[in-house]
Structures are given as C-alpha cells and as structure tokens.
C-alpha cells in the first residue's frame, strides 16, 4: 500500500527552490516512435510485419528474420516481475536526488522482457500492468503498475513523477464565464486541487453560473482577461508563483470562412483570444512555471491547451477560427520546446464540436463541457501530453494520422469534415 502524500505546507519564501534536473533525454531517432505513443498514453512496441516477432529496444530490423518492416503496435499490458533492484546510487543527478529508485525486469505477456520503472505496491514476482508515459525529459518510458488498483496508488513517488495529478496542486482556469470553464473548475476541485483560480473578465458583468462557480470548494474567482496584457501580467505578479497547472479555457469561436466575411474585425477577435491569449499567458506565467518544475509535491507540472480538432486541418465552415486555432496549436509546439528542461508538460486536448451556443447548429455527436473537463483531468492524472475528446475528434485524428493530405482534400469538399 502506498502512503498518501500530504498536502504541502505553505512554502518558506527564504528557502531555495529546487531547480529542475532531468532523467536522461537522449534517444535514437527510432525510439521517438515509442515516445510519441507514450505521450498519448499508449504502450506500443515494434512488431515485425513479416514474422510477427515483437522486439525491444527499438531496432532498425527484425532480429528474427531481418525484415525492415517493424511497425509500432499496441501491446497487451500484462506481464510478470521476474527480477528487481532498488537503485541506491546513480550517476544521473535527477535520479541521485530521488533514490532509492525501484526498477525491474518484466516478462511481458507480449513475449519479451523489458526493463521498467516499478511501482512500490508490486509484490515480488507479482503480475503487473504496463503503462508507457513521458517522463520529465519528455521521452517515453515504461512503468509497471500493480495489476489491481491499490490504496493511494497514484501517490507512488515514482508514478507521480510521470503524472500531472491535480491532487494538492494549484490550478489556474483562464475563463470561468463559460460552461466549460465552470465544468473544469468543478472537476479539478473534485480531483483534489488545493486551489482552483478561475479567471473572469470584467468581473462586474454578471454571468450564468457565477454563484455556483464561487461555491465550488477551493475555487477563487479572480480578474483575468486574456485579451488584455496588463490584466494577464497583473494576475501573474499576484499568483504566478503558485500556478502548478494552467488550463486555458478561453476561446473565441465564430462560424464562417474568409471570403464571405466583411473585413477582419472578427478574425482579429479570434486571434486576440485564440492566439495572442495563450501568447500573453505564456509570457506571464511560463517563466515561473519553468522555474518551479521540481518544487516538491506541488511542483509546476502541466500547461493545458484546449483546442478545436480543426487546429490540425482547416474546416472551411469555421475556416477563420480554425486558422487561429492552428496558430495556437503551432505555438504549443514552441512552448513544449521552451519548457524542455523544466519537466512541465504541455497537454494539447483536441476536441470535436462542443455543446455550447456558438456551435449550436452543428449536428451530434458533440462533446459536453463536463465530458471535456473530465477527460482533461483524467489526462492530467495519467500524465498525458496528447488527448482527443469526443467521437468526432477521435475519428479526425485517425484520418489525420493516416494521411493529412487526404484529410485536407476531404475537408475542402462540400460534404467535408
């Protein structure tokens, strides 16, 4: 049984902040396929298309038949711990600061052995369930979990290094005027966040759900307008040092493409919220989070971008909004690069049509704000970096992965998307 982690005390401002260090970052290019899947929470290994042999570590050719056709395939999660060690001394500074550290050899049900991080609740010789996640360096790693859920399982020291669990952490939701922002606040509070700051622009202007929002445990409503640099900077100077998870729920969505719109006023509003909004937030909150990536139980750990799946490929029916979302999506990659070294993960949650006023005329299936909030909190608890929410987004991503150019053709047909 894992001991529950305690809520951290208020930080002594005199105390030095522990600087982030990283587990080993360097990987072969081939191994990045494993990291890509791990960022989505998928456990894949290379499998030979010709002889079906499963192989690991990542190879260029099949060691059974020398075929070059090795493909990353989802693997059965089961396995058995056949040898273990607790590392007490390490040459790497990150691990040195975190020893003792448990690793072991797992005989996978997939038929091969792997070296993996080992959860503290796994018994000697016990059955395990494998997960693949990105670690603080942003690279994929394997961890063995107990086959059955154990008490306080998520609080395991090694597992928590891979996740962005909101428990005992402080989150900032950037727009609480919307149903989505309110659903997100509720979900984070329920997940054990110690404080949920919820930004509201023009606080004097009433909005639906205001009272219910304020009544959610641990929620603090604060003034924030992502289109106003002064507002963003003022808030950062106030709470910038205690934002561990930032979830940007602000969005500006209008139907319509480019040709049939009159002028660029609406497009400018879209960019103000959807692109310059995150840019302002990154400049104001990014440096503080980057500095606090190893700051104990409530270290900064995640930046969440909520983006329409049409950020990946433009849907002309919402063509101009899609373009602003594409800009934000592109910026998220820049942010991931700039967060490298800090251990702070960037989670992109791509969702299909949301059940809300500005998408009222779109047909189902739609994503409810509650469903999206639940999925995002789940992804934080799991430590994911890539998430799609809703049947439309799942399908869209599948098609995008198959061939982004074919998808682009489809989207530009009259019955596209």
């Amino acid at each position, binding site marked *: 049984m894992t001991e529950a982690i305690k809520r951290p005390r208020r930080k002594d401002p005199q105390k030095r902040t522990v600087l982030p260090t990283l587990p080993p970052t360097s990987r072969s290019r081939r191994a990045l396929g494993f990291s890509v899947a791990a960022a989505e929470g998928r456990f894949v290994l290379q499998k030979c298309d010709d002889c079906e042999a499963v192989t690991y570590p990542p190879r260029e050719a099949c060691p059974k038949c020398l075929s070059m056709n090795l493909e990353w395939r989802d693997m059965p999660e089961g396995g058995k711990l056949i040898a273990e*060690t607790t590392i007490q001394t390490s040459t790497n500074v*990150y691990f040195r600061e975190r020893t003792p550290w448990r690793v072991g050899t797992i005989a996978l049900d997939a038929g091969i052995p*792997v*070296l993996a991080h080992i959860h503290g609740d796994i018994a000697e*010789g016990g059955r395990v369930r494998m997960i693949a996640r990105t*670690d603080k360096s942003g690279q994929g790693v394997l961890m063995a979990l107990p086959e059955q859920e154990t008490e306080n399982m998520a609080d395991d020291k090694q597992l928590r290094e891979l996740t962005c669990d909101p428990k005992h952490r402080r989150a900032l939701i950037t727009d609480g005027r919307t149903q989505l922002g309110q659903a997100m606040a509720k979900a984070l509070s329920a997940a054990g966040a110690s404080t949920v700051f919820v930004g509201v622009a023009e606080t004097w202007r009433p909005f639906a759900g205001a009272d219910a929002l304020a009544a959610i445990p641990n929620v603090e409503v604060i003034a924030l307008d992502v289109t106003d640099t002064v507002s963003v900077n003022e808030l950062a100077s106030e709470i910038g040092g205690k934002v561990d998870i930032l979830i940007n729920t602000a969005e500006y969505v209008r139907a319509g493409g480019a040709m049939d719109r009159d002028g660029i006023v609406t497009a400018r509003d879209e960019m103000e919220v959807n692109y310059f909004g995150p840019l302002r937030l990154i400049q104001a909150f990014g440096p503080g989070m980057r500095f606090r990536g190893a700051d104990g139980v409530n270290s900064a750990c995640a930046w969440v971008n909520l983006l329409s799946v049409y950020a990946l490929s433009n849907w002309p029916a919402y063509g101009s909004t899609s373009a602003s979302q594409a800009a934000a999506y592109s910026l998220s990659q820049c942010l991931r690069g700039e967060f490298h070294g800090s251990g702070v993960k960037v989670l992109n949650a791509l969702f299909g049509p949301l059940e809300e006023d500005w998408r009222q005329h779109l047909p189902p299936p739609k994503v409810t704000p509650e469903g999206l909030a639940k999925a995002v909190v789940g992804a934080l608890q799991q430590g994911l970096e890539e998430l799609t929410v809703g049947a439309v987004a799942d399908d869209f991503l599948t098609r995008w992965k198959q061939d982004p150019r074919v998808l682009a053709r489809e989207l530009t047909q009259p019955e596209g998307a």
Partner: protein
Amino acid sequence: MTKRDARVRQAYDGVVAAVPITIPYQRYSPEPAHWWIARALGELVRTAGITPQDIDGFCVSSFTLFPDTAVGLTQHLGLTPRWLDHIPMGGASGVVSLRRAARAVQCGDAEMVACVSGDANHVDSFRRMLSSFSRFAQDASYPYGSGGPNASFALMTDHYMKTTGAMREDFGKICVAQRDNALSFPHALMKKPLSLEQYISARPISDPIALFDCVMPCAGAEAFLVMSEDAAKNLDLPAVRVLSTIERHNAFPDDPIQIRGGWEMDRDEFWAMAGIAPDDVDLLETYDDYPVISMMQFEDLGFCKKGEGAEFVRGHDLTNGGSFPHNTSGGQLSVGQAGAAGGYLGLVEALRQVTGTALGRQVEGAKTAVVSGFGMINYDRGLCSGAAALAGPGA
C-alpha cells in the same frame, strides 16, 4: 541450421603468449588512454628485448581512445604494423585478442603481435561512458535510474538468488577470497583485508548488490606479446602455449534474463580442443565485475553443474593457497577495473602464474590455467563471452 560436421578446429601449434605487463593502476589520473597504452607498449618492448620496429602486429582495446582507434595509435606511437586489430569487447577483449593474434602469427600474417589494453579514468569519465555506452543502453536502460552495470547485475543477481538459492554469503566468499589474494599483489588498489561481516554489512548500491560486489573504476593498462614458439626461445622468454579458445556473442537471446553466458554453447568443444578436463586446471581467472558472473562462469565452463555455483563455492577455498585458486591477483574486485584492461587482467595474471613469475602469491606448481572473459552490457545482459586454456612451460 545443420549440425556442425566433424571437422576439428586447428590447434594453435607453434604459437605462444609471453611478456605479461601490468602498468600499476590509479584511481583517477589526468592522463589519457594514449598515455597508458604507450607506457604498456614501452614496457613490452623493454622487457622482451626487442625494438618497436619488431612489432608487426598490433591489437588494441580501449573505451576512452576517442576520437582515435588503433589506426591513429600507429602514427601516434610510431608503429608500422602489417596486421592491426581493434577489439571493442570490454571484458572479453583479452581472450579475443589472444585468439586473433595467435591465428595471425600461426598463419604468418604477423610475427610479433603486441596486444595492449588501457583506459583513462578522469573524474567524470565513468558517468560519461555510461550515458553513451550503446544505443540500446541509451534508449532502454540508462533512462531507468541510470544505475549502470550496478543495476544490470543487481537484476541478474536478484534473479539468480531467487532461482538457485545462492546467498549473499556465497558471493561474499568469492569477494573475500579475492581480497586475500590481492593482499600480496603489489598493483592492487584495495589493500585492506576484507571480512565476510564487512562484505555483508556494506553500503547498499543497488539491492541486492552492495559496495564490495562492485569494482572500482580506475586508470591502467595491461599487455602481452604473441609470437612463435621459436621467437620466444630466441629471445629467451618464458612462454605460454594456447591449448584452446572459444568466443561467442549474443548467446541465448531468448532467455528473459541472463542466467548463462556463451560458454555453455561452446564448452564441450573448448575442453575437447584443449585435451584437458576441468579437474586438470591449476587456476581459473574469471571475469569478475560482479561475483554473480564469476559464479555463472564456474557453472557454464563446466566446473560444476548449472545452478550449483553457490554449492561449489561453499565446497572450495578460492585463495591462491586453496583447493581452487581463483582470480589470483585479486581480480577486478580488488585490483580495480581499468576499463577494457579489466578484460586483460585475468589473462595477464594467468600468463605470470603458469610461468612461475607471479607478482603476488604464486600458486604452487601452477602449469595449466583457464581464463574466461565476459563483456558489454549492451542493454540487459553481457553479450560477449570467451575463454582460453593456457599451458606454461612445465605443462
């Protein structure tokens, strides 16, 4: 695969190894690998009474020569060999260098081969070497705690103990006996006696491995010459015949965790070619970066049955004066691990023992020795294994 035909490997007739050289190790040294190799080569030449120009074959093993290889060393050291080899096999380097050089001399491709291994040890070189040791280590073992070989051997040891019933005391007995052997060996870095109690209560490194299960990385060099029997006679050098050798890489790839090395695949041929049995061996030098792997070598070379290594250890005195002299200079566990030179240490020591020129305590009447090598934890197991049976002048 068809069964190997009855063709018997050619014996190493007329070839000998001679002039065992050890350059005293240092825990840390600012000198580069080139310096250590040059010193060993110089000692070889002086001790043999030859000139550098007489060396027409050169074989090098080193982890820290980068960006050079054996090629760059020829110009650096002023050699003009007609046969050149670079053996990057870590703990199997000594045995493999010997068998390659022996064939070169036997076939006339070279007359006088200098086999040299040497490595630097700067303050940070161990960490750097681990992080870029191999692609598989980089992708799939170093990111898991960065425990290096300590963690790899801890997993092997944990598994071996669970499946065979070996106890820490059994591994301790190997380490304690080697320390005893090291006390008389002038170049050993560890010169304090070691008790079983100290072994058992030592600081844990990577459970079940503790401090005295691990070698100390250091700088140093080892070397020997391979030449014809006649050449050795002319130079009046005590010479050692090569009775048999084996080499194997990536043996038993489907074992989920390493429980044996390549020796098990080749040991029948090894003993048949040598024309001797395990009982005829006066001393054994195993590759001992951790005691568990020495125990596996006892088993896989046929000194005892699989899984009975611990019992074998319990039944023997492993010191130079004992019933089964093993790692007679103290091995890497007590002398230190000078990188690839660790793969030469046992061989060079065996050459001294069977020629009656031990620097430490001489094993009485030692004539026949077996040396085995093991190397390169590429990911989760050592890939290279090899062994050589050697006979001194009196054998």
